[in-house]
């Protein structure tokens, strides 16, 4: 593919945060209690936003993009994630 292809074709490129920082949509924010967490990684798989990342085998929430839907808190088998009202 020629390098100046974008000059002639209206091609989109993959980009994180295409709708801006979607974390600003959030009303309730999830919080992980690492003492209760059993590292089952279910929250990472069911997060509709892909905003729970793995860091040293531990789930970590990316608050820049988390929309606060609460799926992770509902699905956590040990109740390690709680939803806290943010605003």
């Amino acid at each position: 593919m020629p390098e100046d292809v974008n000059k002639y074709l209206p091609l989109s490129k993959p980009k994180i945060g295409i709708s801006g920082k979607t974390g600003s949509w959030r009303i309730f924010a999830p919080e992980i209690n690492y003492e209760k967490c059993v590292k089952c990684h279910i929250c990472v798989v069911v997060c509709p936003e892909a905003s729970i990342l793995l860091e040293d085998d531990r789930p970590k929430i990316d608050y820049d993009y988390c929309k606060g839907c609460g799926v992770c808190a509902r699905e956590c088998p040990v109740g390690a994630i709680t939803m806290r009202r943010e605003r």
Partner: protein
Amino acid sequence: MVTVKDLAKMEDLLLKGNAACAGCPIGVALRTTLKALGRKTIMFVPACCTSVVQGIGPGAAISVPLFNTAFETAASVASGAAAAAEILGKDVTILAWAGDGGTYDIGLQAISGAAERGDNVLYICYNNQMYSNTGIQRSGATPLGAWTTTTWTGKTEHMKDMGMILIAHRVPYVAATSVGYPDDIYEKVKKAKEKKGFRYIDILAPCPPGWRFPSDMTIRLGRLAIETGFWLLYEYEDGELRFNGYTKLVAEGKREFKPVEEFLRLQDRFRHLFEPKRRDDILEEIQRWIKERFEWYLSLAKI
């Protein structure tokens, strides 16, 4: 078998910060599908919620090549791409990714044509049982009694059985799965990827604004639909129909379906069946339909 830990470690090709609603089932369904297919995939998306989720140019939230088609043409455009890939000798998966409006109603003739020709296309329908993107209108997949903006008092017909229509085409692979089981989605997409010819997967996708439930219940409702028998986990492969997961346990007699009320009560689109006056006639008809449909599938299946 893939485990949840394996799934968690795989690369995400649906990027965060996309334009989906909070709790959108497309997130779970598309992430898992793209994990199974990998980067060597071309997506064909007709008018549906995914064309909104991907965002507006010059960026995109999906990191595989994607082409937006007209509403009725996802399967026919994908057919052309499959023919081109074959001539050029490229090893890519051609994925048509459409909602239930573009599959059950508007795109039906294109799918039927592609299935009849046996084009090398993987067609995935994420089925939220209504036209959600245009504002919650009735579609062929809407179940009996469900409220939509065009059926104010509840739909009066049962949903269409798209899986059976495709099975009647004798295509190599047909499967139905649910957003409640990401590992099941992964297994079925992986299996479909290895096959040649027209393949169809139907993913039930509970939609929070359309079905009127809190956004944290998406996965729970995807599971309850299976546990009540409202939706079945099955796959049709090489002329044989088989059940998976919970549906298989019921077919083997190890479990029983829960009463469908447990599933319906959590959604406000069925609220008029419970209040102000309980509509036992419709509730019993839904329960009867679930039983009848499961017995029909059971008579065709090899357990």
